[in-house]
Structures are given as C-alpha cells and as structure tokens.
C-alpha cells in the first residue's frame, strides 16, 4: 500500500540529515515499497536537505531505482558478454513478445517486471535469467515459459 508516514519515519530515522545518505536512503525506500513513491522521494529529500531536483536526478541516473510501482514478479535477463554470446539477447526479445512489454517496464496487469542486467556474475551458467532472485541456469525459452506459468 502507498507510503505511510510511520514506515517512512522508520527509514529516515536511520540517517542523519546529510546529503551523503541520499542513495542509501532511497535504496531503503525502494526495498520497503519496492519502488520510490513520490511522497517518499519528497520526504527523503526534505529530511536529508537535498533539493527534490537532485533526488530526482539521482533516482533517474542510477538504473536500480524505479519510480513506478513494480509488478508482482521480477524477471532479470543477464546480458553479460557470456550470456550475449549464448543468446541472452534472443531471450529478452522472446520475453518481450511473450509478456508484450518492453524491457525495463512492467506488464499492464502489474504481474511481471521485465529487466535486463549487465552481468550477474554467473557467466558459467550462461545464459542466465533471474526470476524473483532465483537463478535460472543455462535457460531457454521453453524453460522460461514453464517458470512463468508456475508463477501465474
């Protein structure tokens, strides 16, 4: 559910009002609400004494931050070199068609997030797809379809 002042206070209390903590604080917010709601962004900036424009710049600069509500399940396709050579790119394209959503976005029914990641450092398992923090080693379209079905 959207931001509650209590949840926010719990996060903000961890940080002294110092702009250095902007990124960490936003990461905590994201961990809590699984995206960064505008109210939370305002509160964090306010608390740390940084202008909203900077909070926004940081949140859009770094890939890991999400400013829109996240879906129920998160799919991360690794596009590291090893995975690229072993067809990671084709996997993403496949998923884009499957879920009919562009990488970096959430399906309309908020059920899946489709993301790409530069390298999860599991090159031996290439191509890798991480679904809700579970690594799918040496995966393929067929395997993925099954995984998604199980989640639905």
């Amino acid at each position, binding site marked *: 559910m959207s931001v509650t002042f209590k949840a926010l206070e719990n*996060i903000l209390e*961890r940080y002294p009002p110092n*702009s*250095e*903590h*902007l*990124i*960490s604080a*936003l*990461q*905590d917010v994201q961990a809590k609400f699984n995206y960064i709601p505008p109210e939370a962004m305002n509160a964090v900036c306010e608390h*740390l004494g*940084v202008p909203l424009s*900077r909070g926004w*710049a*940081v949140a859009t*600069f*770094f*890939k*890991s*931050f999400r400013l829109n509500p996240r879906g129920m399940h998160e799919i991360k396709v690794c*596009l*590291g*070199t*090893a995975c*690229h*050579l072993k*067809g990671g790119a*084709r996997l993403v*394209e*496949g998923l884009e*068609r499957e879920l009919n959503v562009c990488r970096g976005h959430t399906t309309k029914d908020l059920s899946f997030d489709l993301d790409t*990641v*530069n*390298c*999860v*450092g*599991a*090159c*031996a*398992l*290439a191509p*890798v797809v991480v679904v809700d*923090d579970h*690594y*799918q*080693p040496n995966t*393929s*379209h*067929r395997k993925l379809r099954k995984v998604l079905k199980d989640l639905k």
Partner: protein
Amino acid sequence: MAQESIARKIEEFRLPDAAALAAYQASILEERDPNRTVIIVCHGTGCIANGSPKVAGALRKSIAAAGLQAQVIPEIKTTGCHGFCSRGPLVILQPSGLFYQKVKESDVEEIVNTTLVEGKPVERLLYTDPKTGEPIAHDHDIPFYKYQQRVVLRNIGKIDPTDIRDTIAVGGYQALAKALTTMTPDEVITAVEKAGLRGRGGAGFLSGRKWRFAVENARKNPGPVYVVGNGDEGDPGAFMDRTLMEGDPHAVLEGMTIGAYALGAHQGYIYVRLEYPLAIKHLSIAIEQARNLGLLGENILGTGFNFDLQINRGAGAFVCGEETALIASLEGKVGEPVPRPPYPAEKGLRGRPTIINNVETWGNVPQIIEKGAKWYAGIGVPHSTGTKIFSLVGKVNNVGLVEVPMGITLERIIDEIGGGVPGQDRFKAVQTGGPSGGCIPYELKDTPVDFDSLTKVGAMMGSGGMIVMDQRDCMVDVARYFLHFLEEESCGKCLPCRLGLKAMLEYMDRFAKGQGSPQDIDDLHSLARAIMKGSLCALGGTSPNPVLTTLKYFKDEYLAHAVDHKCPAGVCKDLITYSIDPELCNGCRVCARSCPQGCISGEKKKPHTIDTSACIRCGMCMDECPVGAVMVA
C-alpha cells in the same frame, strides 16, 4: 548504511592483543581433528543456482540416517566458489581431496554409502579428463586446478566465509597483527612498493606509489584520509571480485585495515554492486564478526589503532567503477566523473585524500605483508608481479575462475586450464579487459598475460574478464555489443562520449546491416580517435578499444559485412537466413509451435520448412530444436 544485524557465530570476547590472536588460532586448531572428514559443498552462486543447497541438505539428512559412529561423522562446510563453475555443484571431501562434480540430490545416498561407509570413490561423479578420458579423483590433479597458483583465492573453497573462526584457523589477520605490531606505516607502504603491486581494477597503477602520494598530500594539509574498496564489478563476464567478497570477505577487510594503518585512515568504505546480494551479506557478517573480535573498530588488537568499515551498495551504474564517479556516488550525488587531476589521492571523498583500490588489490595486501615483498615480487614477471584472477568464460570447456601468475601465455590459460574450445580445435579471439578492453586474435595466442603486453596488443588487463570466442562469434557483433553496453552506461556528461558512442554505433549498425563502405571504416577510425582524445573520463577514453582492436585484427570481417554483405559467423540478423536440414528434422513441430511469426510449416513427423520471407530471424527455432536441425547461413 542501514544494517540489520545478521551476524552468526559471534564471539563474545575481544582479542586484547596480537598474542591473543595467535592463542585463539591455536585453540581453534586444537579443537579440530585434522583427520576428521570434512565434506565441502560449494556455495558459490554458480553451484547454488545448480542446487548445491539441496545437496548439502540431503547430505546432512542421509548422514544422520546412516548412523555412523561419532568419530567419523563428517563436518559439512558450505564454502565460497571453487571456480570450476561449469562443473557445479561441486562436493569435495577433505582431507583426502576427493572431488565430485555435477552432484545431484539423488547422488547423495550413493556418496554416503560408497564413500563414507565403504571408503570407496563414486567413479561416475569424478571428473574425467577430456584429453585422456581418464577419471581424476583429486582436485589437485585436475588440470583446471593443477596449473593455477592461488594466492588471493587460497582460502576460498576451504573456509566457511560466514565463520570467522575458519578464517583465523587458516591464518587470517596474522598479517594485520604483524603490520600493526612490528611495522611502521611507512614500512608497510615500502613493502607494497617493493612488491610492485599494481591495481587490479583496470589501469594497473602502482598501488604503493598511489599510497605514498596520498600520505604526502595528507601531510601537506592534515585531516582525515579515507580508503575505499571498489567492489563495483561492472565488467560483463567478470566475477572474480564477487567470488572474493563472497568466499573470503575477511581477506578484503584485512587488506583494507592494513592499508588504512599505512595511510592513517580511520574510516573505510566498501562499494559493492547491488547485483551481488550474497557478497553484501557475507561482507556485513564478516565486518560484524571482526568488530566483535576487536579486529575492526576502536583500538584494534590493543594497538590503539582505530579503523571502521561501512558498506555502500552500488545503485546500478557501470561508470561508478571510475574512481571519481564512485566518490560522487559515495557522496550521494549523481555518479558523474570529474576531470583528474586532482586525483582522489589528493582530493577525493569530501575533498580529502582517498585511496580507492579494487577489492582484489586489497586482497593481495595481507599476503605481501605476511610472506614479504620479495616473495611476492618473485611471482609473475617484472613490472607485473603477483598473480591475477581471471574469469574464463565464453566458448571454453572449463568455464570458471582461475588465478594464475602474471606472464603466463593466453594459450596456456585457454588450452591447459580452460581445456580448449568445445567442438573446435582453436579459439578465434579472446576479449580481455571488459567492455573497454580489446579482442586478441588466435595468432597472438603466445602473448604473455601481463599489464604491459596486453596494452601493447591494444587490449588491456582490465579487471580480469577473459571471454573466449570461437568461429560462431561475429567480431562486428561483439564490438557492437560492447559499444551498445557502453552507450547505455555512459553517464552522458561529456559530448564525445554521449554522442560519440551513439555515432560509432550508427556505423556499426550499418555494417551489421551489410551497408556502409570502406570509407566508413576510415571515418570510424578518426571518430574513435576523437572520442579517445576528447572524452572526459577513462570510460569514454577507452570506449573505442573494442572497435579499434577488431578493426585491427579482423578488418576482413568488417569488409565482409560492408562489401560482401555477409556475416561469416552467421550472427548479424540482417545478413543471415535460417533453414531446416531435412536430413536431421524429425518433424516434432517444436519449432513450428515456438515460431512467433508462424512461418514454419510442415506435417508431423515430416521435415519442416521456414518461410524466409516472413522470418524475423529471432532464432527461437534454432534455440528450441531438440535435434539441432535448424541451420543458419
């Protein structure tokens, strides 16, 4: 940053001095029976993904069930990555060193009964040498391990990273004790200088010189000094930092603490990629445990030296591997680099002298202190001393992590350790140094792997990614891939990088489409030079490398694309066609079902055909075909 206390096995006492540390180590070794079997189950990311936790669980169960006599009940240890990821999950029995690979839950019963009860190896789980076809029982005989020299990785795979007692048992923090009690800060720096340690992060700058510089600056204008461990391993296809932080976090902590002592720093930061949750977890645990033992924090080992560490999670920006950008993000700013000079060693975090070293570099420091600069300088070759960890990935049999002395040739790494290229007699090219590194062709297989030689051939050491490519890999596509990667990761501050990468990509796209002309190749050269010279930071300055090296060694492939409109490797979509080999096709219809265009037709049990006019070359059919009947030309 916020840290809920997740430490386990916290000791309830502090170590008052160095002597106490030695005593503590002795006591730990004391209570351990050297002959007792220890079953090591690799818990590196690779093995975990392949189900090693299940294996460990099953082991515990069936051992309990087997009802062995107390003295032979083995201890089960979950450790960091053994490096041999392609063979995971790995199970190793110590002290014998019996090495089981690709162990499944179902194999556990047999291991317990055959090996533990009867004391015989399970043949089918042993590693078989692809050359001789002989099974090899013990890890140290397996070529993949035999030719490695593990200095930084020495403990990984032997210790439980979440239990500091393991670390101390194998001599952890002895170097710290030695430095704090018997050496002056200056002596420590001198040692690092004498060892000739060079930064493992990429540029390969001499660490000792950097430290000296920082100390001088701090003397000139007194105030705090900071040390930073750079674990923002952004290079795709590289995971040695991750393995180090996950498998032996204390090595990093110890190295940084020694460095802090040498530099007179009291606060340090470890900047870890967000994509490495396990590394973050293990480091947090390690820090907690070290603090509790008085190996970190106030008055370390009773020497009055204070130093504490904090973990910062990266937020997803490759450019933050660049030290000035990393500092910016530590300060909660957008991770944009600022021009150097002034170097961080002069004006870094909060405008104070700051030493940023890659975590692998820090990992080397304790060894240098413990075994001495002379010993360290003896490893490797002059000007590139010590060992380097490489993540050997791509088209190679033994994918995994290897630590080798500097100066070893490419060929030895790939053929002897890596076991060669699957299905082909030789590799086509090796890409080293991450996205801004270069591609080295087979012809240069004898290039010794050290900082200067790699730079000479146009590549670079980088952080140690080593991607092997074979004939099915298109060099134009590879270069394009890296450019695309860099374009996405460019911070966009300076124009040559922000627009230049896009511009280079435009050229590459033309080639990939079979358009473009030889003239374009020359223009690309000049543009690349402009970007190299004009860019603000190293990311931009080195970004043309993949293009330049491929242009240098594989110009014919470029011409094949541009002039003959062919992609020899059969990768570039617009220049290939898929077809089905009627000989091989068994008409299982998998491809037809998978085809998003529905352009594959054919009756059941009869060879299928692809309507190339409708084909979008998504490659689904090829990936899905169970019999490999889909061909690309």
